[in-house]
């Protein structure tokens, strides 16, 4: 065995962002990760083919289940998050639904943050009906709310490092402890923080999900997602026969007994990804790998710009509220200091004095901010939820969703901060 594989050094985050999961191609010597645009793989011999399908050997069979370019993305992300492995998916929502599908059974109960991304809430309510689950949404800011919602059937607690759009910061350590007391894992969506700003697995979370579409890629070109496992949860605690008992979907294989700490990820890939089919494309994996190479550098600049703009907005008389948890005096100060010492991300809302009309006028006034429904791009983005994503809601329903008629959501990009301030000034001028 060659010397260079000996892990005699703990490499830093930026080094790992560039190298983890991406060795030079042994066949061609290609230094960049090749895009393995192939559906399938020729087997060496019938014995090898059988061993791959039986999971007795790790080998490529079919790109719905695994692909070398996608594997480089999976290993790199799991390395950065401090997990034992990852499975990539076609989107963040595909990653999330597959993570849930793998560990939940009909009749199970989930405690979820009420501040979760709207698309996640919709997915949970959909799964609740289709899979006969029971989901309780709680105000995530008080750990006691999570504890109060737990019951005998609770199999999962689900939160976000930084909530969208309210900017709620999760007390990961406290909620993880509540989950483990209940014999359930804690799943955390770390999309807004990325592993550069926070590593939820270090604080006791068991599973992390990502929309790679956002900051991991950073270029706004590709949709993708991933599930990362800490490998710490005891699936054989008697409460997860779906993972611990022999699986009828894989000819009687008991995933946790056979694969130990890797049991959840093996089931997620060999059964859930195989059967539900939401695989990431190799080309998208390639683009995400390019993005991750500069993740830490970009996030520092996203955060720097976000701080400047949030502070500037907070000084204005025509802004009633700036909901950036990284703003000094935020009610999340303590949690930001603990979990997000490098900064509280770059997506936040502020409220205009003047309601729906003011929100729409503001959008009309800006030129650099792109008016669209995404976040986490190198380009700065803007949206007025009351006239777009939440258009069907009346003012009372908006308030329940934590959105005011004059709420504007910003995703701060990598441009020069002074240019972004100039642009926002034009938005304010348009309100007149």
């Amino acid at each position, binding site marked *: *065995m*060659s010397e*260079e*594989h*000996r*892990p*005699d050094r703990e*490499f830093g985050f930026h*080094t*790992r962002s560039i*190298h*983890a*999961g991406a*060795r*030079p*191609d*042994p*066949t061609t*010597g290609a*230094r960049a990760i090749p895009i393995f645009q192939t559906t399938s793989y020729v087997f060496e011999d019938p014995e090898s083919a059988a*061993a791959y399908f*039986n*999971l*007795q*050997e*790790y*080998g*490529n069979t079919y790109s719905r289940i*695994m692909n*070398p370019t*996608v*594997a*480089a993305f*999976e*290993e790199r992300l*799991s*390395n950065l998050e401090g*997990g*034992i*492995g*990852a*499975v*990539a998916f076609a989107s963040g929502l595909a990653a999330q639904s597959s993570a849930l599908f793998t560990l939940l059974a009909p009749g199970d109960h989930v405690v979820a943050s009420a501040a979760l991304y709207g698309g996640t809430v919709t997915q949970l309510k959909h799964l609740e009906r289709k899979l006969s689950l029971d989901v309780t949404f709680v105000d995530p800011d008080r750990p006691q709310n999570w504890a109060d919602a737990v019951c005998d059937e609770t199999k999962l607690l689900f939160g976000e490092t930084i909530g969208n759009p309210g900017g709620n910061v999760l007390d990961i350590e406290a909620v993880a402890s509540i989950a483990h007391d209940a014999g359930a894992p804690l799943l955390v969506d770390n999309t807004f923080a990325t592993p550069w700003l926070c590593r939820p697995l270090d604080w006791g979370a068991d599973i992390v999900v990502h929309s790679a579409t956002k900051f991991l890629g950073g270029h706004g070109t590709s949709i993708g997602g991933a599930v990362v496992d800490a490998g710490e949860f005891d699936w054989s605690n008697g409460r997860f026969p779906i993972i611990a008992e*022999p699986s009828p979907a894989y*000819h*009687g*294989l*008991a995933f946790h*007994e*056979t*694969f*130990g*700490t*890797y049991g959840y*990820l*093996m089931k997620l*890939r060999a059964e859930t990804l195989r059967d539900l089919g939401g695989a990431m494309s190799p080309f998208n994996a390639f683009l995400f790998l390019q993005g991750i190479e500069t993740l830490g550098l970009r996030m520092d600049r996203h955060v720097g710009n976000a701080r400047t703009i949030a502070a500037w907005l907070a000084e204005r008389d025509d802004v009633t509220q700036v909901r950036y948890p990284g703003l000094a005096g935020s009610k999340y100060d303590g949690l930001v200091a603990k979990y997000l010492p490098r900064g509280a991300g770059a997506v936040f809302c502020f409220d205009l004095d003047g309601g729906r009309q003011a929100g729409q006028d503001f959008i009309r006034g800006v030129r650099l901010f792109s008016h669209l429904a995404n976040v986490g791009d190198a380009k700065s983005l803007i949206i007025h939820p009351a006239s777009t994503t939440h258009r069907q809601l009346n003012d009372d329903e908006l308030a329940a969703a934590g959105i005011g008629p004059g709420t504007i959501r910003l995703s701060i990009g990598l441009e020069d901060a002074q240019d972004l301030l100039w642009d926002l000034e034009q938005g304010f001028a348009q309100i007149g």
Partner: protein
Amino acid sequence: MADTPNMEIWQDPETIQTILHNARTVAVVGLSSNPLRASNFVGFYARRHGYRVIPVNPRESEVFGERSWPSLSEIPEPVDVVDVFRAPDAVPGIVEESIAINAKALWLQFGVIHEEAATQARDAGIDVVMDRCLKIEHARYIGRMHVLGFNTNTLSARREVPA
């Protein structure tokens, strides 16, 4: 698990790689002929990767076409690694036998945790790995674990020359 021992000393990457690199013969204690059992996965994999696998299981007569021995002491050839798929309370007896047959390494699979017996083996000059899977560690350092998106925690910009 409040009484979890300090596992790091039993999961040293250098020790793991030295064992995997130097071993030729692996005696698998508790090897099952049932292809769905973890022991069968590991034995099958080790054979594929060139190790000589010797079954040790009084309940089996033959696994992978190899005679199964009732105990370590009855194996009529030298053993490099004793790989254990048994309940933790069987470990002290296995350690005594491992010392008696001059095994070079003791490998205790996932959940096979017995710190006192492991310490006894180490004091007798045997390399010990505990609560780790031989197949997974081989795949991490020598095999193709990254194929399935696992974190091998290995990093290199050198071009590997295929063997």
